[in-house]
């Protein structure tokens, strides 16, 4: 499995379906009947992942939005990206 902190750009899997429900996103997983909801920082990361992004870029975007330093949120952003990767919701951008 690829690691989120590789020098690599990541993007949402285009086959994945999601809808915006107020503050949160509800995504349909790959298996029948599997759904995930994300809100807050995770929802804005998801929004940013519409375009191919590197981990450092995602950290910078979140840091700007939430007024914290990129270093402080790096581990959390990497962990969320790992989760998305393990569920095959994002993939390496070519």
């Amino acid at each position, binding site marked *: 499995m690829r690691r989120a902190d590789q020098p690599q750009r990541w993007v949402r899997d285009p086959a*994945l379906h999601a*809808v*915006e*429900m107020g503050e949160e996103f509800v995504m*349909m997983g790959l298996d029948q*009947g599997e759904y995930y*909801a994300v809100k807050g920082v995770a929802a804005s990361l998801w929004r940013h992942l519409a375009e191919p992004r590197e981990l450092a870029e995602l950290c910078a975007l979140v840091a700007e939005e939430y007024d914290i330093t990129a270093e402080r949120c790096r581990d959390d952003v990497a962990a969320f990206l790992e989760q998305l990767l393990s569920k095959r919701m994002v993939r390496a951008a070519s």
Partner: protein
Amino acid sequence: MDTRRYTGFGLHIDSDLPLPDLPRRPAGRRPDVVIRRGRVRPPSASARRLPRGLWADGDRIGVDVPDVGRYACERGALITVDAARGARPDAVRLFLLGSALGILLAQRGHLVLHGNAFVVGDACAVVLGRSGAGKSTLAAEMHRRGHVVLSDDVVPVDARGRALPGWPRIKLWQDALDRLGIPLSGLDRVGPGFDKFHVPLERSADPSPMQVRWLYVLDRHDGPLRVVPITGAAAFTSLHEHTYRNEILVGELRRTHLARSADLVRAARLARVDRPRGVDSVAASADAILADIRADDRPGREEELHATSRPAPAVGA
């Protein structure tokens, strides 16, 4: 072969097969749906084989039922029935009006729920639950209390969030009939060898499609009767679980299903009815649901409904 004209779920249906459950309609308008007898080409090598004999093959979605036949649904407009040699007509009809019609309604872009719907005021409530959860018994109870039952077993919800009316009958097991005090005489069996019967409902007029404002999932737990709201991702999981023949949700149908589910979650209240295990009081469940509807039926709701009835923009791709 004679073509017979029927209506059901707001559709004009022309059928080679007699369908005594469905109301007839006079000649005139072109049919929305044609049901014909004929040979059904087997699913191709590239077809997706799904559980329960279901398959998806390009534009065709079908179902193979051993000793009954093969059914194919195309473009939400045509069902071809290839009955097995010696198959009983009532068995052929059972799968035609069940799985095959359910598939066709999904192809037409509806969210097809497994449950029943009854009218409350100017809207309707949908009751969902696994087989044997008591959905139909509850519908019969609501009918007894004067609520018009829109449809039983299959509730198609259209792109505007409205439940489409089916035909005026409820399927009940013999024990439920006994409990509700409905006599067996004159009722038709649902299918050969079933102790399940069609109970006709009197309806003064054909009901129109009704806005779905409440959805209740019948469940059981160790504790007293209670109604618990379902929100977030769990609401989507619930709607998926209670979608009729949800195995067919592949390809484009998955996307449509998600968009329709989102519309419904925005416009309606979804809750679970936890009933105590072992005790089965249909009257108590009906009371709890109607009380929940009254508590939710507050002023200002109408505006909210209009504001959220637009189709959801799908993100992704």
